[in-house]
């Protein structure tokens, strides 16, 4: 698998520092499952984090902190739960999430929810689209990241295959077109809703 589209260096840095908001680290983690180059980059930043941790001026712990932690050592660790989803078709990084059931959101297109912020502004979900499907031209009400799990699609800007990772910001219009030779599964993480034109666009707007 040759991956042509990667998260920006800044995104990888923010992923490593733990600063990425809501759903975005889910999309990045999926890409990292597939991309050794980006894993290397993240590993470098984690090394920076470790070196900085070693040198930070320590804070004062509460007096009984050590005693309380020692007491906790003897308690049995909570039995690790089985990963809630063990589907080998999905990126390994998704195993810790309760991925919802698939439901149709339009002709030839299905959705599975992964994660949603309580206040409704951030979400991560999977989309499965039939071969050849053409989506309405749309833009985005916020940042959106897309990771290709399976299959491929094209838009005005390029062609995307498994492992590829794309970031789209507000004002970025495109019309995705699923490849003819197979279904396409995408992992999408977004803040804000897609803004679509036309009646078909209303469907997207309502469901996504």
């Amino acid at each position, binding site marked *: 698998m040759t991956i042509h*589209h*990667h*998260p*920006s*260096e800044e995104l990888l840095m*923010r992923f*490593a*520092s*733990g600063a990425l908001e*809501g759903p975005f*680290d889910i999309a990045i983690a999926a890409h990292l499952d597939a991309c*050794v*180059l980006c*894993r*290397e980059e*993240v*590993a470098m930043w*984690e*090394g*920076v*984090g*470790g*070196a*900085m*941790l*070693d040198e*930070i001026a320590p*804070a*004062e*712990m509460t007096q009984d*902190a*050590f005693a*309380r*932690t*020692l007491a906790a*050592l003897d308690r049995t*660790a909570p039995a*690790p*739960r089985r*990963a809630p989803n063990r589907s080998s078709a999905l990126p390994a990084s998704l195993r*810790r*999430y309760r991925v919802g059931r698939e439901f149709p959101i339009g002709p030839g297109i299905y959705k599975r929810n992964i*994660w*949603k912020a309580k206040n409704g502004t951030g979400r991560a979900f999977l*989309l499965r689209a039939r071969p050849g499907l053409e*989506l309405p031209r749309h833009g985005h009400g916020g940042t*959106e*990241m*897309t990771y290709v799990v399976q299959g491929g699609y094209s838009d005005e800007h*390029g062609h*995307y295959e498994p492992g*590829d*990772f*794309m*970031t*789209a910001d507000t004002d970025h219009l495109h019309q*995705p077109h699923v490849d003819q030779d197979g279904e396409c599964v*995408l992992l*999408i993480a977004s803040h804000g809703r897609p803004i679509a034109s036309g009646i078909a666009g209303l469907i*997207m707007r309502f469901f996504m």
Partner: protein
Amino acid sequence: MGQAAGAISRWRTPRSAAGAWRVSAPEASSADDVHSKCIIAIARDRDRDGFAALFSHFAPRVKAYLMRTGSAPSLAEELAQETMLSVWRKAELFDPARASAATWVFTIARNLRIDAARRVRDPASLAGEIEPEAPEEPFAAVARRQSQALIREALKQLPAEQREVLALSFFEDRPHSEIATKLKIPLGTVKSRVRLAVSKLRELVEGRT
């Protein structure tokens, strides 16, 4: 739906996985070697003296790290203790060939911080602890012990002003605008210092010229 534009998702020049970390490295710091041995002793013998040594070094630092990234002192304290408990329970997953002790502890603390933030936003989404299928932290199998020592050396070689903005922007995730206000320097200067620090770091770590 997502997309990419040439301008947004850049096409990265492939680097060879081996080449990036090839440079021969100085030995890891001896303090970190001691910490690594403590983690290994916990994995092997549930060694409490080793745990005490790790606790006294890392717990107050993890707490300081969490407070700097915006956690309230009480949450930072709780997560620091939880981090140390994870060190004890996950010691078997530590692989000194892959990461320094400090990097391993950092990734545990960072992950707990992310999960704590996510629990606040959506308590139902996380399934909780799942059985580890493979050593999950730190992330990459490609990270080599010597590269960690290289990173330490590289950080030491950065000019103090670049190191400072890197610590603020990466380690404490402060926005560039906030760093500018805090250090009383123009926003453009913050951006250029971060850029210089990142490229210098990369050059030193990857042996690129």
